[in-house]
């Protein structure tokens, strides 16, 4: 009986302080496991275009490009909105050049960025707004993706399509479910800035929570098993209670 009482007291007091975090852990945990991670990643927001490079379109040869951009590296021939293009890096700057005529497409202007975003986007929603982000990226965009155009669509989950202003490539796709997931993750690991699971706050909460859970386990053991064993025994004994 003493163990039962001590456990009950500890469990109650610990949970007074930890209970909210337990609730947060279970709500955020449930959210993260229930929503399919591919959906969270926004895979359904975009079309995975398989348009093939039309060889005949490449009328501007690499040799010409090499003259124009002698230090070009990581050269690629790809399709950008149905047009064959060269993509490459020169002096830490990325370029998109029309492979038919050598015209520079990058950096993308607003019109091109929006049409690229529409091209990538799989939904029917209209474009709400667009902006060029060159520094201070929002939390949902990596700094490495800058500079990038953010194009917001008027659709379920407020989707945003991020198009690199230098390469014209899709660099990110986000919707509310990702944003909530991100919030849930920081709540789950109790790090509201860097989302790092190795923080001290999480350590102490988890440590005390383990203790609280064990006292809870002792309570369950006593209340369910001990009492049951006693009850069934007593019941079959007749008058005892």
């Amino acid at each position, binding site marked *: 009986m003493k163990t039962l009482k001590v456990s*009950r007291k500890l469990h*109650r*007091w610990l*949970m*007074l302080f930890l*209970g909210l975090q*337990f*609730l947060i*852990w*279970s*709500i955020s*945990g*449930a959210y993260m*496991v*229930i*929503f*399919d*991670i591919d959906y969270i990643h926004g*895979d359904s927001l975009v079309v*995975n*275009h*398989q348009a093939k*490079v039309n*060889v005949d379109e*490449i009328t501007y*040869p*690499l*040799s010409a490009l*090499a003259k124009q951009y002698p230090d*070009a*590296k990581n*050269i*690629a*021939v*790809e*399709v950008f909105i149905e047009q064959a293009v060269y993509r490459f890096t020169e002096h830490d700057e990325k370029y998109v050049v029309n492979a038919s005529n050598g015209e520079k497409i990058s950096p993308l202007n607003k019109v091109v960025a929006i049409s690229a975003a529409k091209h990538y986007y799989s939904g029917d929603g209209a474009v709400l707004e667009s902006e060029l982000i060159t520094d201070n990226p929002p939390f949902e965009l990596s700094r490495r993706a800058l500079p990038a155009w953010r194009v917001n669509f008027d659709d379920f989950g407020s989707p945003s399509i991020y198009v690199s202003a230098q390469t014209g490539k899709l660099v990110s796709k986000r919707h509310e479910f990702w944003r909530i997931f991100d919030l849930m993750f920081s709540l789950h690991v109790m790090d509201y800035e860097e989302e790092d*699971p*190795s*923080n001290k706050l*999480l*350590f102490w909460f*988890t440590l005390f929570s*383990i203790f609280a*859970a064990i006292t*809870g386990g002792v309570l*369950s053991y006593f*209340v*369910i098993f001990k*009492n049951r064993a*006693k*009850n069934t*025994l*007593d*019941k*079959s*004994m*007749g*008058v*005892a*209670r």
Partner: protein
Amino acid sequence: MLLLKKLHKWLSLLVGLQLLVWLGTGLYFNLMDHQKASGNQYKQTPVVAQVDINRLVEPQLVLSQSKQVVSLKQISLLEHPYYLLTHNKGLYSHFDNDYSLVDAYTAEPVVIDETMVRKLAQSSYNGKGVIKNAVKLSPPYEDIPREQNEVWQVNYADYIQTSVYIDAGSGRIIKHSNDDKRFVDIFFMLHFMDYGTEGSFNNVQIILFSLFTLFFSLTGFIWTIELLFNGQYKVRFGNKSRTLALFDKDLELIGEFDLATNTNLLDGLIDHDIALSSTCGGGGTCGQCKVRLDSSVKVTSAEHVLLTKEQLQQGYRLACQHDATETKRLTLIDVTKAKKYLLELTHSEFISPYIKELRFKVLGGEKLKFKAGAHLRFYIPPAKGISIPARLPDAFKYHWRDIEYFEYEHQACSRSYSLANGDGQIEAGTNELKFTVKIQNAPNKSIYPGVGSSYICNLGLGQTIEAAGPFEDFHAKPSSNKTMMLIGAGSGMAPLKSLIEEQLCFYQKERKETRGIYFFYGARTEEDLLYKDELYRLSRKYPNFFYYPVLSRPHKNWSGAKGYVQDLLTSNINKICQIDGVEFYLCGPPNMMSATINLLKTKNVDATNIAFDEFI
């Protein structure tokens, strides 16, 4: 609220262990070495080729000779430029992709073979191990569960068993893995309940568990809030105490007691040897530790559930929900001067194969007064027990023939037994306490026999035992002319016989109007019919007392009723009396009790007219 607490209790059983796994693995993630966990201990970035742009083959030329591509890209492998042709592009590189490789200087098609793979692996590895082997594999892979393309696995003979994974189509270094990472992966598997190793946390089992856990913490959270609002969280410093005036249920002052304020009244009273009934031990769920306090004392939600409105208005509260600071007066209602006694065994006799009549003398010469139906709580000390009782009469040995003899040790416990005193002894108070106790036997060693019943039935004459009481949960209603119907079986005899004798005695003394008393008693065989001669004698003596023994397995010449007592009752209850004005008193095994209570409910018997001595 009660449902919520029940839910919390049972959910704890369901998710408790997984919750500990989550917390334990969570703590591990918090503390683990992230460098080790990445598997990148010996990973380095391969040196990139210095590309001469003028030597690169025209992409147009390459493309005109190849299958159609989504992308042609100059990449570097082993410090040499290649064109990576992507014929089919997955949304991510680990999704299904279709690649081919061409030498960017010569336009020669290149196939990634084992020799090249070994070199590629080495270019990304800076450890001292040598390559053990390189194998081409198809998905799925344990180390990289989400990868959907064919890969080469290059295994190193180093102390952490490094494996380098290389995309078979593109030559890209996918990942390094090693024993440190594999160890961490076990924790991830546990945390994500990913026992199929799909590399995801969207599996059915975790979704189900997460929902149960959500309900679990929600119920716990609400419970905590409820406790908080009911003032169940109190910080008290030191061992202060407060003096309360204690009354017994007849409102007679028992005395003034100092009760500790840092504990609830239930626990505080124990310090004064006043033990209230409680099976939940102070959790506010069994509702047994009823007392009366000042009626201004706050009502907790547990009390709203477990006590009636009238009771609450009259000041009834649960002792476990309050402490000594909240009240000045405390009235014990289940207890009239219940206290601890030392009892000496004076008589111990088998009255049926499994039931003994025990009589104890109260040491100190005190006489106990109590209502018929009351019980005492015996404190069973830790001791050795035996599975077959000592001093078993020859006539009953037959019934114990299937029981295996063994010895066992048991811990201290407390058990309650109903007093079987009757026949006019109890009104005046008695120094001799009578019990009928059934020895709960165990067929074999896998379970212990009834610890309490075995212990006290094996006590020798003259031995002593401590007991507290009397507790009067079960007793006759104030005298009236209502018909009494008593239904019992087995050792449920004790309190019922006590009640019958009390009533008949009262009837004889007062010579009041006749009150019908019917006693249905169930047993297996004639041997199990306790006190049958005495009861037959009483039924002859008192015209208003009717005794109906019912046997479930009678001998051939049994002329009485056969079957279970509840079945007999079902078929005969309407013949016996008008059911409206009847008081029912029940005591017996759980099946009999629940069946009888259900029967009475279907007959629309008011719950207030059913008293039962429940074995909880």
